């Protein structure tokens, strides 16, 4: 049953690629038959269904995905399904076992400052102040993109906290500061691996709003991993649901709706319900 839904979705995905959507339709990232597997080295596999030591474990199984310039893609899947591996392969931090990733038509070989990664944990350098961290990003940007650090601090509303060290500010402010450092490098693509997962619920909701404001200002292509379906429905242009291991694309939801969105009403609400059900969760209990 799983495989039949996967083929169905691949077909749907291709259909979407042929019909350019609202974002202009220039393909930014093309994932072609991307596969990843590794040889199990543990004496005792972590999961009952995994093969024994020395055997090949398949994580990603021939994933095809086209992402258009300026598109906001949410990757959703159960824990351990291979979302992070997929993102790492696309970003160039890991090498795929088969297939390839093209960004702007060029195969990805290594990470690049044009494509920034944000992790779940705060990756601000703790020995630098917030402003100095942002300066690091500015230095790495092309000379014509450089703007003073204050501008980026203002962008994320941290103008009073430039002289603070990362351990002196809250988790949410840390995320914003890191986002500012990332944006200072003026990347084309943002990869975000559960960037807000470590924050409390309220802060996470505020982060969604900040993200929307920032994205309205500077349109980037974004691949975003989340477990929070509400976050996905609120922000994404498309939600890509991955199956359990080996991960295939199980379903893609299109969300061609303008912001602000009420995620409980109308078509959006219906899609939200479907997405919950697709993940095996009943939204109405």
């Amino acid at each position: 049953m799983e495989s039949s839904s996967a083929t169905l979705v691949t077909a749907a995905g291709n259909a979407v690629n042929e019909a350019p959507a609202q974002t202009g339709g220039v393909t930014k990232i093309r994932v072609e038959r991307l596969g990843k597997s590794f040889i199990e080295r543990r004496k005792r596999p972590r999961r009952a269904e995994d093969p024994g030591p020395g055997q090949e474990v398949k994580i990603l199984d021939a994933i095809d995905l086209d992402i258009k310039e300026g598109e906001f893609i949410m990757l959703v899947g159960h824990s351990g399904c291979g979302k992070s591996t997929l993102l790492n392969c696309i970003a160039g931090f890991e090498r795929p076992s088969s297939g390839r990733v093209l960004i702007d038509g060029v195969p990805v070989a290594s990470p690049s400052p044009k494509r920034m990664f944000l992790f779940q944990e705060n990756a601000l350098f703790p020995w630098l102040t917030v402003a100095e961290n942002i300066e690091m990003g500015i230095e790495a940007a092309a000379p014509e993109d450089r703007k003073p650090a204050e501008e980026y601090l203002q962008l994320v509303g941290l103008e009073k906290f430039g002289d603070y060290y990362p351990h002196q500010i809250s988790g949410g402010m840390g995320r914003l500061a890191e986002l500012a450092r990332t944006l200072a490098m003026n990347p084309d693509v943002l990869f975000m691996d559960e960037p807000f997962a470590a924050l409390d619920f309220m802060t996470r909701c505020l982060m969604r709003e900040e993200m929307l404001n920032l994205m309205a200002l500077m349109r980037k292509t974004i691949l975003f991993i989340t477990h929070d379906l509400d976050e996905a429905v609120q922000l994404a242009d498309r939600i890509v649901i991955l199956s359990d291991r080996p991960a295939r694309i199980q379903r893609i939801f299109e969300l061609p709706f303008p912001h602000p969105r009420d995620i409980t009403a109308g078509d959006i609400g219906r899609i939200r319900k479907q997405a919950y059900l697709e993940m095996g969760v009943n939204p109405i209990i």
Partner: protein
Amino acid sequence: MNRADAIPQPVSPVSLWQSLQHLLLSAPRSVRPIGAFAIVLAVWQGAAWLGLFSTQSFPSPLACVSGMREVILDGRLVDYSIASLFRVTVGWYLAVLVAIPLGLLLGWHPVLHDALNPFLQFLRPISPLAWIPVAMLWFGIGDRPAIFLIFLASFFPLAVATASAVTNIKKLYLRAATNIGLKGFRLIVRVVLPATLPSIIVSLRISAGIAWLVVVAAEMIAVKSGLGFLIIDSRNALRMDLVIVGMVAIGAIGIVLDKGIRRLETLPNMRWAIGKQ
């Protein structure tokens, strides 16, 4: 407070103990070490007066104070302290200059690490004292063998700690740094060094302590100055009070050295690591 407390009662041993406890706890914290120090001195002096041990083999505190007066007045205490500090400083600085770059290199370069780390680990547990014959053969007498021993004693802990600090940098920072596009020398200076600095400072503290420990042993051979020499020379002259004075001076200078390096740990861009240790 209930009514029973209001009735005057004879002072029981329990309440005396309690009031003493209360007094101890309410006094400022700085009183605690001073108090303990005073108690040790008082017990020591009391035991000497009571004749519990022979003051020939172990002098009383008051005798030590008059001995200290003597070495301060004839200038030996200052001269010898400076001589010891000079050897420690030179040996330790040399070790810092060689060990930290080497540790960074070993921690950064997996091939070098695999090749040289076992060698370092093998040399590390050999006491610097075991090197004394070698030091004397190589460097003869004077400052140089002592400096060599201090260098050795501080070199291994520094190199090993720096290398392990580099291998233990949070991968997240390295990943962020590569993503920002830092490579090679810039990556080392901008990320690897600051990320390891807190651990390096801890190892600086430890190695300075070891260097100071070793200087005494080093000065027991082949030199005619220094606090270690004061101790060995006074023992030969059966001046046990001056032996104690030498020990006290070593302890006091050791504390001051440690305090000095500790101040580095409170620099603003170092504070992030304090909670982790």
